[in-house]
């Protein structure tokens, strides 16, 4: 299972990279979204999969899945959400002020050199 997950993560990383290399801001942010999904799944996979019950003591199981990666992922999800929402509003303001979503048009101008 871990190998399958690693391959899925690879696919997520590749797609994310390809999207982040595109011109439109929206696609870039979609790429970052995919990248954070990939990273979260990577964290989970590296902790080991299917080692037991959900990490709730009420389950009275003999073994539990590792709680530490889950805590880390939870923190990461919230942080990446905060950053993504900030970026989205930044993109929204960019459209409003500059009237474009094309990164090639958002280059620094020559006279700034």
């Amino acid at each position, binding site marked *: 299972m871990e190998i399958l997950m690693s391959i899925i993560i690879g696919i997520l990383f590749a797609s994310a990279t390809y999207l982040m290399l*595109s011109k439109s801001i929206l696609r870039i942010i979609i790429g970052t*979204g995919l990248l954070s999904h990939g990273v*979260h799944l990577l964290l989970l996979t590296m902790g080991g999969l299917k080692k037991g019950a959900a990490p709730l*003591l009420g389950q009275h199981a003999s073994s539990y899945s590792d709680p530490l990666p889950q805590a880390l992922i939870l923190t990461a999800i919230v*942080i990446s*959400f905060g950053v993504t929402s900030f970026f989205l509003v930044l993109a*929204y303001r960019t459209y409003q002020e500059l009237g474009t979503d094309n*990164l090639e048009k958002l280059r620094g101008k020559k006279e700034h050199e």
Partner: protein
Amino acid sequence: MTLLHWAALSPFIYALFIPFIHKWFKNLHMGWFILPLPTALFCYLLSMIPTTAANETIVEVANWIPSLHIDFTVNLDGLSLLFALLITGIGALVLLYSTFYLDKQKEKLNLFYFYLLLFMGAMLGIVLSDNLIVLYTFWEITSLSSFLLIGYWNEREKSRNGALKSMIVTVFGGLSLLGGIILLYLLTGSFEIREIIAYIQQQDVHSHPFFLLSMFCLLIGAFTKSAQFPFHIWLPDAMEAPTPVSAYLHSATMVKAGIYLVARLTPIYAESAYWLWTIAAVGIITLLYGSFFAVKQTDLKGILAYSTISQLGLIMSLLGLGAASVHFSLENDYFTIATAAALFHLVNHATFKGSLFMMVGIVDHETGTRDIRKLGGLMTFMPITFSIAVIGAFSMAGLPPFNGFLSKEMFFTAMINITKFDLFQFNTWGVLFPILAWIASVFTFIYSMLLVFRVFAGKYKPEQLPTKPHEAPIGMLISPLILVSLVIVIGLFPNILSNTILSPAITAVYGGVPSYDLHIYHWHGFNIEFFMTIGVFVLGILLTLTFTKWKNFYRIFPYSINALYNFLIEKGKLWSKQLTNRYMVGSIRTYLLYILTFLVATAGYTLLTKNGVNFYGKNLAQIGLYEIVLSLILIVATISILFAKSRLASIILLGAVGYSVSLFFVIFQAPDLALTQLVIETVSVALFLLCFYHLPRNARKKESIGFKMNNAIISVLVGITFSIIAISSYNTKLFDSISSYYVENTYKKAAGENMVNVILVDFRGFDTLFEIAVLAIAAIGIYTMIKLRLGGNNRENK
């Protein structure tokens, strides 16, 4: 701190009072306040002569950074005293001259004297300090103060360019010097020159790889400071400085710092043949080059600048030959005369070149021009200045009975001694030395004569002169008169110097071992030197008289080192700009490509070279049907995003990916994650849709992402790299998890049953605190971004 330390630092301390002097004493020229200092220092140093003449050295230590072996150690021996006397003596005369040269009203005298004192202190520091790091510190202060003095008239573009050029060249050499010092420290374990010499005499370090490297680094430092070929280019441009500065820095003192360094380090390196040949060859090339191009100059200070370069080359080549007596350890010491000649000529050069610069300053001051083509026939207007010029220039040309004649004779003797040993010791190229030296002397004779006779003799051209010429005020004439009387006194009675100042200095150059008994004679009999001198006079006079006929000869030398410097400076700017423009294209995608390529390359290289790849794992979990279906959904959704034409579709597909991730969380027994992921994915998709809705109309048309080969390759590589890293690292897990602790203690110690939540708020609560901070900052940031509109609501008002 002893009296000697305070003496070396006194110019710096004195400089601190300049703003107050400037403020309180406006009526009197500031030079009068500064003059007593170098005079007092000179008298104090004179009192040291009996000590050094007995070949005793005074060593005093003042701690600076003892833990790093950096202390301000003063070492006063014959060599230091010789230089210190020159610095303070000429310094006093230059100050006196500048008091009359610079106008009290028009010039910013406080700055001028501040820089000058800074320079004087640094120069004293160089010649007195025994610690190489302290020496380097003072060395750079001379570069800096020279930069400030050359650019003193900073409203002129030429001054600024000259200052910049001298700064670039001398600081280049200074840094090389620092490198050499550090290498020498690594080699010998000391910064103190005395200790280094003692170490070198005991241990054989000549085969050590640092030995030659440190030698050449130190030599580059000395050559740049002393304007040796090909680093001489800064000196002619430094002539934009006020004339007292040129006289002091660029003829008598700063340019001799390199000479001092070479003389000082001779006991360390003299046994190496590279030292001897490099210095002698560079010196003789500089001598010839400088004297040859001095003839071509039309600016008086230009002539003097090239003449200084050539005379410095002469002294340098003599120092190189002087090292030969250590290298060959001859019983019959033919080369000590070279060192004697070097130091003797050093003193002579300081006297006659100082007076010549002051003479040129007077001519400039009284006629308004320094252009040799406009001047002529000033003999009757300025008789005293003319006398100064004659004595100075004749001494420079090597005419008897002036001091230049004596040192030039010794120079020829030293050069001819090479040929004496030619067949046995030196290789045959050594024959070139006396020949080149002789040719250079002819050119020296020519420019010296042109300097005097084209200015003071010939036709008087009043229509070309900005002001009507007249004799200079007496105050301006005092300093050059003192200098030329020294020229005559040393010329007539050279032995007043020989055993008081020169012999101890020669002893110091050779590391203090033999005391040398020097006698300078006027008359050697009819030997080769005599005929060489006669030849110089005859050919020199002939060529001077026919100068107008052959001066076009110089047109065949259109290229110069200066052109190379300008080329390098200009092209350096251009090339670095072109290079930067080539990779700093302004597009984020390109930079991202660089970053990712680097990432893949380094990670891939490390994986492959360190045998990091490992596909054979244990402890793998089973794959069930749910997992397969969910994986397929995830993969299809992910890849479809790439091919989606409309952005709306890609947003929805991203949502699909998010929900399937949360389903994975369900399968992998992570309920809290699944919950959070569901909620957050929903909000995110809503935000994406908001963003999409506000896309500008013209940009909203559907277009597919397009295919770019580079992007595709790098993306696939990134994906593969991370897959391999993930698999390999999972399969090479080295330790068990620490989570058993959490499982055991979640209820016992923290009173909770949900392990993830207990970790978040109890075991690792700090993470959560700052995660809350992140969310708060993001919220405030979003609010600010939307509300804060500096510079007006341009677009919305339209």
